[in-house]
């Protein structure tokens, strides 16, 4: 039972019953020696660059002084967690983070799937390629640029979008400072910047769909939506599920730069999330241990989300696989 098995694993055929455990183990290891050899470089990588620094999470229980190092810095138990959970800001920040995560899953996550399906329906390959190349562009522009363009377009009074909205609705709009508009703006920015790039993975999965399947469906009289529903979507379903599970692992990472750049004195109540809070405590106030504690808390929530989504995916698959 693996975390990410999209299908039920087929039972491995067992060697004869009289073979001893050790012999069995040795023969199995011998049989798979090449596979283990292939696994080795990756394992070394994870051991050195991911697990060796992992002692760093214990800094959440210390009062880390960079110069003193891990050994000399004193243990403080759960002090940092108590401070986090009793902080008057905590409920608000947690709420803001979860709300954005929810909007992300509901709006941002499906967008590239829809666009990939749309692109898949474009018959002229030159047109398709041109559109593809164009919609990847925002991925290369930094959040600083995205934010300054947003400030330009949505400026109070004379921003082109503000003018348009005021002419249409006849009331004035303060997009950049009104707390009501903060989340729509953030989601809009994220959609704009990430949707095109996000289609790549689904298009790669779609590259392999057998064209004869569509031919057969057409002969059966299936219309375009039916073809999409019965052929295209099933072909990328497992990719969608994997992406969903992976996305849920970093839902708490709302992204520091984007939020920070869009935050101001008038909308901070809805804007502040863990990532911006960590900036103020970790970098501006230089409290490494406290920000590690926040990171650990985020990681625990992420882990719960990953297992939760995976569990859901399993139930979902059992009922709908056939």
């Amino acid at each position, binding site marked *: 039972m693996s975390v990410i098995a999209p299908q039920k694993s087929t039972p491995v055929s067992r060697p004869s019953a009289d073979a001893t455990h050790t012999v069995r183990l040795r023969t199995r290891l011998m049989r798979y020696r090449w596979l283990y050899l292939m696994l080795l470089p990756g394992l070394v990588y994870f*051991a050195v660059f991911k*697990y*060796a620094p992992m002692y760093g999470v214990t800094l959440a229980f210390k009062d880390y002084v960079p110069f003193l190092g891990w050994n000399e810095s004193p243990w403080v138990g759960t002090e940092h967690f108590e401070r986090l959970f009793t902080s008057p800001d905590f409920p608000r920040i947690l709420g803001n983070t979860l709300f954005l995560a929810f909007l992300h899953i509901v709006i941002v996550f499906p967008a590239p799937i829809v666009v990939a399906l749309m692109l898949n329906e474009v018959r002229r390959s030159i047109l398709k390629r041109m559109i593809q190349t164009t919609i990847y562009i925002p991925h290369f522009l930094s959040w600083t640029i995205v934010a300054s363009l947003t400030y330009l377009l949505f400026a109070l009074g004379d921003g082109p979008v503000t003018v348009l909205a005021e002419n249409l609705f006849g009331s004035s709009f303060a997009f*950049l*400072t009104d707390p009501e508009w903060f989340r729509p703006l953030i989601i809009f920015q994220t959609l704009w910047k990430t949707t095109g790039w996000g289609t790549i993975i689904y298009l790669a999965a779609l590259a392999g769909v057998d064209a004869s399947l569509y031919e057969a469906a057409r002969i059966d009289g299936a219309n375009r939506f039916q073809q999409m529903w019965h052929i295209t979507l099933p072909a990328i379903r497992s990719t969608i599920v994997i992406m969903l599970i992976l996305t849920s692992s970093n839902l708490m990472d709302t992204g520091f730069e984007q939020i920070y750049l869009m935050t101001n*004195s008038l909308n901070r109540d809805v804007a502040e999330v863990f990532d911006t809070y960590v900036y103020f405590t970790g*970098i*501006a*106030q230089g409290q490494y241990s406290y920000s590690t504690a926040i990171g650990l808390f985020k990681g625990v929530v992420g882990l719960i989300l990953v297992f939760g989504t995976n569990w859901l995916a399993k139930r979902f698959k059992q009922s709908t696989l056939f």
Partner: protein
Amino acid sequence: MTRTYIRRTGVVAALAASLVPLAACGGGGSNAIDEEVSSLTVMAPLLAGQAPAEDGQVQTAIEDFAGVELDIEWVPGANYPERLTTTLASGDIPALVVVENSKYPAFVQAAEAGAFWDLTDKLDDHPNLTPESEEVLRASAVNGTAYGVYLWRDPMRTAVTLRQDWLDNLGLEVPGTTEDLHEVARAFTEQDPDGNGQDDTYGLILPNWNRLGAGTPYDAIETWFGAPNGWGEVDGELVPSFTTDEFFEANRFLRGMVEEGLVNPDFATFDGANWNDPFTNGEGGIIIDTGSRAKGLLDLFRQSDPEDYGDYVTVTGNLTGPDGELHALPTPGHGGVLAISKTAVPTEEMLDRVLSILDDLSSQEGQTLMINGVEGTHFNEVDDYAEPIVESEADEVAQADLSSFGLLETASNGKLYHTKRPAGRPEQELVATLERLAADDLEQAVRNPALAYYSEVQAERGSQLELIITDARAKYLSGLISEDELRAEIDRWFAEGGQQIVDDINELHSQAS
């Protein structure tokens, strides 16, 4: 499944933990001990687009003068704290480290743990390191202990920059008081100062640069009204400025200007990086910032109108408040410290040698070299000003290098280098005016007595708590909350940890005096 997962992961975690001692002891002085100090490693922030070349004219000249080779790590200025933190953690600390914020917790903790030399009793042994101002020394030190030589900065920089042509069109004088400022802003808004027949101008350009005691325009106005600069002494106790009546009076004044439409309506989001734009575009006519702002604006006008660019910009210093007195807003007088690490400079003998090198570099000759360059090659002396020599591309590179090395100059014994003489007549007049205004205003400077103290609570929570006040102030100025609600937010500051900061600062204050 979960149980297996935890068990197996646990084994790996234990394995990883056994690597800890290995990993945590990285570094620890890869610098070989060099008793003679023939070379020095340095870490410094870089603000220019390009780092000075190691074999560049300027660096070579400085090395020759100081008799030491410099090995400088230039770090992108925007991310200096990250690199400072990892450098402290690595244990491999360069001999000289620029610390822009001498109260940065990671630095203070490292210094108290013995990473840097305590120079408190050593500075007076070197004539050019003897501080010009005891007060600036205290402000740069950590509760009385100097973990570095402070980097001298102009002590007075606050200035009001105005559109000269608008004043002329309307027959107005440069404001002298806050009330004058209000009048000029109103005239700039309502009397069509550019004469184009359209109602398309306003008075004061305010940015979203909204901090406390950081030299912002908000700080300046509050100080002019008589509020303390950050912290002030009331009945023998140190209190934050936002508890005083003058703070409220100043903000009532500013809110009135916002309500009248004399300020850019988007001040809560307006990025300070674009501060010049409305001024040069003819939308707003007043900027409260530093004198260098006026000079930068003059530069921009020269590009669009090379003939008469001098007619657009005028400048004045701090304004007299409603009480009829001048309360001027100074700077802290330093830009951080140059700290000497004990890992790269382990012995007292080496320390003395390093200090004497810094002493040389802070002499009149040293300051001139680091900031103005070599006379005849990089500048000519004209009326005690330094006129830069820029004739070739190599000269431009040298000037850019000088601006980077200028950041490393301590000059804590006072300014002995030459002020740079700008090219044009209007700029020369402007610089002379700024120097005169600064000298006058400095006499009336309102000092921040709390700068000398490092409070752990403040270091840990101060900047997060500060947001309560600055956000509430912006909401109050925008008319979103009432004065009572502003007061309620200030009470919240006290309740959420501000009271501890006040207690801490006062305890340190009573220990010091």
